[in-house]
């Protein structure tokens, strides 16, 4: 018997298979959320390139825009948008599960929180779109 903090008794730890996360719905959905974050990061990289092109002057900026407007980038952006919308939907869902608001001794129902979130999201999106397109 060892008493120095080492193993006092053997513990069986099963090595999961490499594809354990494909086996059940909740695992697959968790993996999907992990993957959507990669697309969000790709958009960050795209924005960094956008800003560098902008800082390099009109010529470099024009070349970046023709890259951004290519068919391949349309497909890539659509993929990124789909991933980000999936992330948004799951984020709204989990937030309505986590956030509990008490008003006057009553708990605000989940659907009301969801509606408030959607309204706030629409307002923020409209403001951002206004600045990006028309301001």
């Amino acid at each position, binding site marked *: 018997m060892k008493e120095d903090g080492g193993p006092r008794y053997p513990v069986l730890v099963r090595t999961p298979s490499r594809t354990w996360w494909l086996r059940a719905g909740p695992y697959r959905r968790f993996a999907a959320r992990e993957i959507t974050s990669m697309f969000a990061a790709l958009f960050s990289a795209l924005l960094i390139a956008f800003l560098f092109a902008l800082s390099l002057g009109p010529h470099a900026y024009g070349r970046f825009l023709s890259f951004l407007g*290519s068919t391949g980038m349309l497909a890539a952006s659509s993929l990124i948008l789909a991933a980000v919308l999936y992330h948004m939907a799951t984020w*709204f869902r989990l937030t309505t599960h986590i956030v509990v608001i008490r008003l006057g001794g009553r708990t605000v129902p989940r659907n009301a929180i969801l509606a408030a979130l959607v309204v706030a999201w629409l307002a923020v999106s409209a403001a*951002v779109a206004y600045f990006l397109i028309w301001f």
Partner: protein
Amino acid sequence: MDEQSESPVLGEVLDWSEGGQVASRARRAPVRGRQSRAEALAWALFSAGGFVSAVLLPINVAVIGVAFAAGWLPDRALAYSRVLHLARNPIVKLYLLVVIALPLYHWAHRFRFAIHHQFGIHAKRLAAAACYGTALAGTGLAVWAVLRI
């Protein structure tokens, strides 16, 4: 009670896993104060990044990515002079940093575990350093880009 009947049987769980190994209970290092503070910071950035990705990213991707490439935007929307004028506003610079950097930390925190879960690479410290390092590098690049404009 539905949850009970849907949960897998122990035999199934054991069948899923391939092979076994004996490991000691004490292989995980105890969490110290500094490490737990770093963990808390990583979680805070992860959470903030998830919020930004959900609320701010969809419209940005839809306009800058999809709508521009599809030709739905008016010509002057992304015109050089207009975008430059917009990007020189300090509030817009701050907004850009938030939209660029926070999703990177969200990604870093998730990808750190994806390396462990999906790729089966268990060099956890190396993976964490690479992921958060990439996010830090992206933040640095974004700050540099914003300051150049």
